[in-house]
């Protein structure tokens, strides 16, 4: 069936942005391929991520959207068998250049994970961890407070900063992880299905937070929740998993990347339309 459909990657370079002026590019991705051993998990992805925007990656599970996201701060380096090929530019700098230290990359490009993963330390120490290892100067207390305020958590935890972070609720833990990520003052925040483990109310709080943070950070979010992408993102990339003709293995592909409004109202690709209208996935 996929064979009958038109070419895979549609409209990646010149998104039909409603705004006249195109914002600055943060990430430029060209022909990105990710391999796990011999298995090519992601095929020929190309897209651009713009500054002070929320870019959403959607698609059915196993379509490689998280894998692509993890290329952006080189988290895939932690997997021994993972190999990344292609071009991934951050402000015109090749992130996979041999001079680039992945640790320094993660200092600028923060990440929030699927499951809230606070350290088994106090709330204060969780937020202060990043600044301490990065050697950020200034008043730590103030930094912790600003970060927690930035994550909308300050009012809830200001009286128990020295209590263990594991005592917080799931939604609070995830916001703590966001506060922890922004405490090192990164340029970009990557969010890997940040709400999948949370209830709807906590999800709403975090979505609101994301809209506020957009003024300061570039955000890339992976979500399996189409409504969430529609609600918060400016641009949406739709990935899908297609069976390889020769091997039959399912590999991730970028199908369409465009303004969120267009993706959800008038997608160019039939597969996107099928997905956003709930016919598969």
């Amino acid at each position: 069936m996929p064979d009958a459909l038109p070419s895979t990657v549609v409209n990646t370079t010149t998104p039909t942005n409603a705004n006249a002026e195109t914002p600055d590019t943060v990430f430029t991705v060209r022909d990105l391929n990710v391999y796990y051993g011999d298995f090519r998990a992601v095929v020929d992805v190309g897209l651009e991520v713009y500054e002070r925007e929320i870019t959403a990656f959607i698609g059915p599970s196993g379509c490689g959207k998280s894998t692509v996201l993890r290329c952006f701060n080189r988290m895939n380096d932690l997997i021994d068998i993972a190999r990344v090929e292609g071009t991934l530019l951050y402000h015109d700098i090749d992130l996979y250049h041999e001079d680039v230290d992945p640790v320094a990359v993660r200092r600028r490009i923060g990440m929030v994970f699927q499951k809230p993963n606070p350290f088994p330390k106090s709330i204060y120490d969780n937020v202060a961890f990043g600044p301490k290892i990065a050697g950020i100067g200034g008043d730590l207390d103030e930094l912790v407070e600003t970060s927690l305020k930035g994550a909308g958590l300050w009012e809830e935890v200001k009286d128990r900063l020295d209590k263990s972070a594991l005592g917080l609720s799931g939604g609070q833990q995830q916001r703590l992880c966001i506060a922890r990520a922004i405490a090192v003052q990164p340029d970009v925040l990557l969010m890997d299905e940040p709400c999948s483990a949370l209830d709807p109310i906590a999800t709403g709080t975090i979505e609101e937070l994301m809209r506020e943070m957009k003024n300061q950070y570039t955000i890339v979010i992976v979500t399996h929740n189409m409504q969430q992408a529609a609600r918060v993102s400016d641009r949406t990339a739709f990935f899908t998993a297609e069976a390889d003709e020769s091997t039959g293995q399912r590999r991730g592909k970028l199908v369409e990347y465009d303004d969120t409004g267009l993706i959800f109202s008038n997608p160019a690709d039939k597969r996107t339309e099928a997905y956003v209208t709930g016919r598969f996935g």
Partner: protein
Amino acid sequence: MKPAWRPAPPSIWSRGFAAGLEVALYLVITILVAVVEYFVAGPFQDFDLSNWWIGFIIMAAWQGWHWAAAQTPVGSYVDHYIADTDGSPACFWCVVVRQLSRFGFLIALPVLAFSTNIALAVALFAVAGLLIAFLPDGRAPWDLLAGTVVSESLAFERPAALAEITKASDFQLGPQRIAENNRARRMMLIAGLSSVFISVLILWNIFSEAWEFVSASEFEWSLLTDIGWFPRRNKFDLATLFVGTLWITGIAILVAAPVGLGVAIYLAEYANSKVRTYVKPMIETLASIPSVVLGFFAISFISPDILKPGGSIFGIDFGIFSLLSAGIGVGILSVPIVASIAEDAMRAVPKELREASYGLGARKATTALRVVFPAALSGISAAIIVAVSRAIGETMVVFIAAGGSGGAIFEANPTEPGQTITAAMASLGAGTDSVAGSGIAFQSLYFLGALLFIMTLLLNVFSDAIVRRFRQVY
């Protein structure tokens, strides 16, 4: 250039840990040197002061390399960087004094080792400590112990707002963090290699000495099948020891397997959490009883209060020392081994298997015996093999309770005293045979050690292979 913000120095614990690691490294190097020395100068030459300088020169070369590397742009940036607390390269004299203080430590060790002049050693430490304490960067004296490990973890990066990134090489960490990271990795690798090192030491030592035994001029193969085990009189009948070891192992397994497996099945299948909180500590208590205590138990309870009255019914006269008594003692030691490994194996059987069995109308006993037990069989056999290997290697119970302290004549009857491989080694080593250091009787100790090592190694490899297969099933 002083930093605006100074982080808290590492805690006393992390300093202590670093110091311990570094001291351990020195010891490893010392031992390495000694091993070289041992091979060069021949076995059992005393290791005296003059030879210490080999180690000293190696260390000096290493330090010199560090210092030289720190002077080069590449070296200072990547690896061999010695920094002040504000992140700038240390001044020349700081480096010199710091490295000299490490020499001081290295000198102090041999002084400690070779003279009773403690005062001199203390003075050396004190001088070096004072030098360190009054360095411009103000380290604490005890940091001397940890050398550069701690002093460099004290160093930290200059507080940095995010700098403009214009090229790929701007994505770099500061030199301290890189150096610290590399150093940690190297030290952990050395620690990891220690196990390989110990294995090589064991193999080399034991087999070279065993070879010396076999190739000695007094040695003939017929000595290994003489009338008994009398190393002093050059009679090394292996059958005497093997029959003892076989009896001990067999009796121990006869005791440990039923009791251990019963406990394991009960804990894995029947016991609720409340009962477990009583039974588990009981098994752990049994596991923590030292084997000497069980040896004493064998001669003070098993022999006089169980075997003597029990044996009189069948007309067997038990003395205080017998293979049977020691075997039961070793069996008691092996119960917790069988119980814990077998319980783990049965717990690893997936719940679904049990539910399937119950779903078919099976009762608990049926499920335990027909479903769980066979599914866990490989783990359970591994438990038995490990227990066998432990029983073969168990020394003190047999040494105390089997009664073969001197030589032993071939004796196949377990109600009589006997000798095992391990007990024979303990007797030789303890010098009860007055052979220590003389003739091939002493080398026979290593010959037995080699035999024991091969036997237990084969059993361990075997059980390991079984466990590996059993892990793959689930």
